[in-house]
């Protein structure tokens, strides 16, 4: 079957070449009068005849029921020389009568046949080059269209995200290569509330990008004076529906958050449900409705949720839940909820989700659809204190006391508080001595705050340009035997006193981040 199909493809292509090739050659033979090109039809018996002809074919002498042959005769063609290379007829050379009006001699024919034998491979190469150029142009056009779609899409995503005091808003957006139609938008409204939208346009490429751009614009415009999510979606649906291309629609989740109270109102037009991650787990907020742009006059239902300090609202698109793993199973909403429930809180949450996705899909995964992830996190209590202490020995006690006072409202159990105090004192001592080299004028900055379900204390010195000394794990026996310095307890103690110690340097500052999980504390 393959052989027949291949042969047929060649036959189909041949007439076009046969029509292109002769024009120039006829002009050579009869420089004064160009002949019209003669096309040989796909099913014309002249084709197989020329394919198998051993040399120049005398048109007048040929006995064949062929319309092409008739056309050639009436056009005054006397000789046809098939151009054959590798058994394939790639063109023909048509010659009119000799200018001397004599018949073509045997020498003439030999000369022409030699010419054809040499011209055929060259012509074949030229044809291949032409084909490749055409393919390259087509590829380029496709790539260009892809770029245009990406540009449109990127242009309609927010450059900056509002960060209401006490909240952290983050988004991760990664388009699939073939540009889907994901979008998100988060804007602060004039009344101080924050409107958020996540959506997905069916279809891909430029059309999807255009619809995405239109939807985002209409959403934003309507959001200026409509704070009720259900009414807003109804209005946007009517506006979009009139102009929506056939078979296209947009899923969209739209909501409004009051950062002062944590109250969220939202409505859903067929999009993935938002997930609220709390200390107790990660749960979807239910809300359903028809996608935008399908039918006019749709009504949507407003749903609300009350977030508490430490809670985190997560919006997402199909690209995550519908990603396939190495075993072809889908990532799925239950797994996403599981990952969210166990993920780090605050700003690290999105990274944890993406890490989990990467682990699930494997390293060779080609992203199937756009990925959009938005996190709106309420710091519980936010910043509790921020102060500086001069770099003088003994000042760590001040840092310890002030942090202890600041975190008092959290009600840490006594043991946890004592441990934190020791950790703060040790980290501040390190900052004073090793970071700031006991220079009183160089301050140590101490901040403490609640981030998600964590209490985070940061102690910053200005020794970021020096590498942090690696200390050996203290061993009392070795110390007593004089094999290890009696000192070197600081870092070890800090590590033992808090749930996590993270040390970072940025060239100027050096920061020790002490993390205490508040939930474990409460359960302890």
């Amino acid at each position, binding site marked *: 079957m393959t052989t027949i199909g291949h042969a047929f493809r060649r036959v189909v292509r041949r007439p076009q070449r046969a029509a292109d090739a002769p024009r120039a050659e006829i002009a050579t033979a009869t420089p004064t009068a160009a002949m019209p090109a003669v096309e040989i039809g796909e099913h014309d018996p002249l084709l197989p005849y020329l394919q198998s002809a051993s040399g120049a074919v005398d048109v007048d002498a040929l006995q064949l029921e062929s319309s092409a042959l008739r056309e050639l005769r009436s056009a005054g063609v006397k000789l046809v020389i098939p151009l054959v290379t590798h058994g394939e007829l790639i063109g023909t050379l048509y010659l009119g009568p000799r200018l001397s009006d004599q018949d073509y001699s045997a020498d003439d024919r030999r000369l022409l046949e030699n010419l054809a034998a040499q011209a055929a491979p060259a012509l074949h190469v030229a044809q291949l080059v032409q084909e490749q150029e055409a393919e390259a142009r087509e590829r380029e056009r496709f790539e260009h269209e892809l770029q245009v779609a990406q540009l449109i899409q990127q242009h309609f995503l927010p450059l900056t995200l509002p960060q209401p005091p006490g909240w952290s808003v983050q988004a991760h957006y990664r388009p699939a290569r073939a540009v889907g139609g994901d979008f998100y938008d988060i804007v602060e409204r004039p009344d101080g509330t924050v409107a958020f939208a996540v959506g997905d346009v069916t279809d891909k490429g430029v059309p999807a990008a255009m619809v995405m751009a239109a939807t985002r614009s209409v959403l934003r415009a309507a959001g200026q004076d409509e704070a009720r999510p259900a009414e807003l979606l109804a209005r946007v649906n009517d506006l979009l529906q009139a102009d929506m291309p056939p078979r296209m629609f947009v899923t969209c989740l739209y909501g409004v958050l009051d950062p002062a109270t944590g109250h969220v109102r939202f409505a859903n037009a067929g999009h993935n449900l938002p997930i609220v991650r709390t200390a107790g787990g990660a749960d979807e907020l239910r809300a359903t409705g028809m996608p935008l742009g399908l039918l006019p006059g749709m009504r949507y239902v407003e749903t609300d949720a009350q977030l508490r300090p430490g809670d985190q609202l997560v919006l997402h698109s199909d690209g995550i839940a519908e990603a396939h793993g190495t075993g072809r199973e889908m990532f799925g909403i239950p797994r996403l909820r599981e990952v969210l429930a166990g993920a780090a809180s605050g700003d690290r949450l999105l990274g944890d989700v993406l890490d989990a996705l990467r682990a699930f899909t494997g390293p060779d995964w080609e992203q199937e659809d756009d990925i959009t992830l938005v996190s709106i996190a309420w710091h519980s209590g936010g910043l509790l204190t921020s102060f500086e202490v001069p770099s003088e020995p*003994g000042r760590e006690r001040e840092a310890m006391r002030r942090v202890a006072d600041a975190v008092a409202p959290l009600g840490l159990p006594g043991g946890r508080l004592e441990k934190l105090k020791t950790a703060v004192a040790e980290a501040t001592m390190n900052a004073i001595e090793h970071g700031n080299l006991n220079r009183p004028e160089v301050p140590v900055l101490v901040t403490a705050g609640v981030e998600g379900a964590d209490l985070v204390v940061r102690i910053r010195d200005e020794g970021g340009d020096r590498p942090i000394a690696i200390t050996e794990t203290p061993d*009392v*026996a070795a110390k007593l035997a004089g094999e290890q310095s009696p000192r070197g307890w600081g870092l070890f*103690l800090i590590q033992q006193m808090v749930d996590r110690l993270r040390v970072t340097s940025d060239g100027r500052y050096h920061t020790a981040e002490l993390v205490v999980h508040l939930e474990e504390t409460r359960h302890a």
Partner: protein
Amino acid sequence: MPDRLTALLRADTGGTPVIELEGEIDRDAEGPLFAAWEQVPAASARVVLDFGRTEYINSSGLAILVQLLARARAEGREVHVVGLTDHYREIFEITRLVDFVTLLPDARAIA
């Protein structure tokens, strides 16, 4: 800078020398601590460190306690410890200092 630690040597009812540590054990504790240790009678094979009035021990203070334990070992003396708060008792455990002292249950036990 005034010493933040007062180390007072007394003897308990059984005649065992007790060093009462009142205040903060940090890098400045070396002087008072070792001064008290010097006064321990030469014949005493057992010395009690009483942390009942110790408010704060930091890593520098731990280093000095390690030096003291090294000296006690060189002198062939046992060190008993009493009066640690739960927090500092945990630190003695985490640092394995407990392996080289004898923890007494309560300050009243030796009073």
